[in-house]
């Protein structure tokens, strides 16, 4: 269970790690603290999402920055 | 001792400026408008911007700008004199019968004194106000906010050279602003 992150001020270009292990790069941030527009960089559970641009919900963002590899990762 | 003296100078100046603001408030509340006008510098700027509800981080949008935007007030002495003249006609219906007013002035802070606190010629002072306006039978308005004033030395006294009024309202809750703030 990760601590909540305020996504409001994350800059475009920032990577975020999502619940479920996917990683996405922020394309646009409407700065409402609730949504991000991001492109999937990796998606273990659903590889078809890679390269897709989607709206990411704040509650699904578990970490900011490149994901740590190895044990402890969700 | 020098530090003590400096503190005393500040204390005395703050009290002197606060006294000026209280006296000004009394003149307004007693409807002694001509005497109040005499406290205003000829080049006074009297400005009350409007306030918008804006998103966190977009503070530059909050206030309307002096000189270019529409504001509640943004005027000089000529217009202020005409407002007094209008009340003095006795047929300014929005002030006939006249309102009962109390200006409460508080949180007085002298922000700057040039060239010095000991011998100031220009003073910047902030304060907060609560203006209670009651008129006719039950009509009541309460206006609260902050003022940022510039005062200029005038002999033994002061003149108000600039007043910026920051009212804590968005949609104006009063039907009019027939009184000075």
């Amino acid at each position, binding site marked *: 269970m990760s601590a909540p992150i305020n996504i409001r001020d994350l800059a475009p270009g920032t990577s975020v790690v999502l619940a479920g292990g996917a990683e996405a790069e922020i394309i*646009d941030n*409407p700065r*409402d603290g*609730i*949504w991000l*527009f991001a492109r999937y960089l990796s998606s273990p559970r659903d590889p078809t999402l890679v390269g897709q641009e989607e*709206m990411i*919900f*704040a*509650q699904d963002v578990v970490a900011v920055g490149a994901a740590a590899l190895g044990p402890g990762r969700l | 001792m020098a530090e003590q003296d400096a503190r005393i100078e500040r204390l005395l100046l703050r009290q002197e400026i606060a006294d000026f603001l209280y006296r000004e408030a009394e003149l307004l509340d007693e409807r002694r408008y001509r005497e109040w006008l005499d406290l205003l510098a000829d080049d006074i700027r009297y400005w*009350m*911007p*409007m306030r*918008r*509800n*804006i*998103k966190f981080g*977009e503070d530059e*949008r909050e206030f*309307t*700008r002096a*000189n*270019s*935007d*529409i*504001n*509640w*007030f*943004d*005027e000089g002495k000529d*217009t202020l004199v*005409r*407002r007094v*003249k*209008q009340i003095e*006609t006795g*047929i*300014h*219906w*929005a002030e006939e019968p006249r309102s009962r007013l109390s200006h409460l002035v508080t949180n007085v802070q002298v922000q700057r004194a040039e060239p010095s606190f000991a011998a100031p010629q220009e003073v910047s002072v902030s304060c907060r106000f609560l203006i209670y306006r009651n008129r*006719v039978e039950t009509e009541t308005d309460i206006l609260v906010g902050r003022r940022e004033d510039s005062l200029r030395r005038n002999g033994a006294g002061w003149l108000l050279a600039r007043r910026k009024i920051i009212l804590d309202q*968005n*949609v*104006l*809750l*009063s*039907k*009019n*602003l*027939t009184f000075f703030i």
Partner: protein
Amino acid sequence: MAVNARQGYRPGLIDLRLGEISREIFVNEDVYAQEQERVFARAWLHVGHESQIPKPGDYFVSSMGEESVILCRDRTGRIHVFLNSCRHRGMKVCRYDEGSTTVFTCPYHGWSYGTDGRLVGVPHFREAYHSRLDKEKWGLVEVAQLCNYKGSIWATWDPAAPPFAEYLGDFARYLDLQLDGWDGREGQAEVLGGVQKWLVPCNWKFPAENFSGDTYHNISHRSVDLAGIGPSGASRRDMGERDASRKLHVCIPDRGHQTIHYVLPAGQMPPPAYLNAPIVAEYFRHCEEEKRRRRGEEARMVGAPGEIFPNTALLSRQPRTMAAWHPRGPHQTECWRWFFVDRDAPKEVKEFLRDYYIRYSGPAGMTEQDDMENWNYAHAASRGTIARRYPYNYDQGSGTAVTDYEYQGLKVPGEVIDLTEVQSSEQPMRNFYRRWAEFMEADDWSQLATWRVNERKAAE
């Protein structure tokens, strides 16, 4: 007449034959509730100006009747007006006055809408909704029709309402005076930053009828005339052009729009104005010349207070401002004021006019203050049981309007009364309330767009 205060609208509250109007229409709760359906849900309402939303993503929160709406420009540059309420559970999706955004997101459950109104973000769409929610059906409620008329934005919830230009009819020329350039070029107006918003304890129809063309209430403004706030230092405005003109009431009967209007004699320039500021005086003198050159006889038209049914007030000249009277219950109006200049007018002109506008109009305006005092207490005094039994008198000048008015070659369409000698009439109010009664009684636009029947007959 004895009145059962429990009833809402019924025919007879407006009696134009007698020139009497019941106080009920101002103070009755049921009439007010019916107005929201009959009038505000069907008419064209003024929302804002395109200069307030210049770039894609820009928005301005406005009001249509009682309801909060968002005026915005989407990513493609197209203008929309949406109901400011999430389709899920109603929370306002925008509680800022203005700004720029890519989406409108509801803070309650997170539904998010593009600036084109489409529902784009639904939290847990795949999981909780099993991807089954039809997002296309749940976008922001959009007005049925929108019109950008020379920069001013109008909207209606009623898909059956006539297009805006038809809704205006012969009144369009008066809205043109508001929005066209001082020099006669089309649509040059921009809105000065800052929309005034304030509350007045009266029914919205008090200001609406005042701006329809109250030529009788100069005594309200005697104190500001004495104080002399006009741009040449006297009165509340430059009176020279009015004094040289025929003074008219112009009513467009089947539309319910009306105005005071002035027409200069043929071949006569208006007297000099704005004498407190030589740069401004010279600018307007130049504009008048240009307007003559471009518009010919039309340049003889001089704007004055008017009203587009139901609640948009015009004033195109000294000061140049539009108002909307938003109903906030039968006993309260939220007044909004926009102020206009030509967008390419010199800085000194804009600043001079801005100073004038502020001291004239709005709650700090020395002229408007006295109007509001009267509206406030006229309304208050009309709420009582006994007061409500006694109608107001709207009989001034009944039966004196003509439909073929012409002055030195300039025709003025509509029902017109020349006020130059008689000083005043109440024709505009009769016109306004006749239309109001039509809206309250009509089940659909076939009963409201009566000009279509007349035009069909004329064609046959």
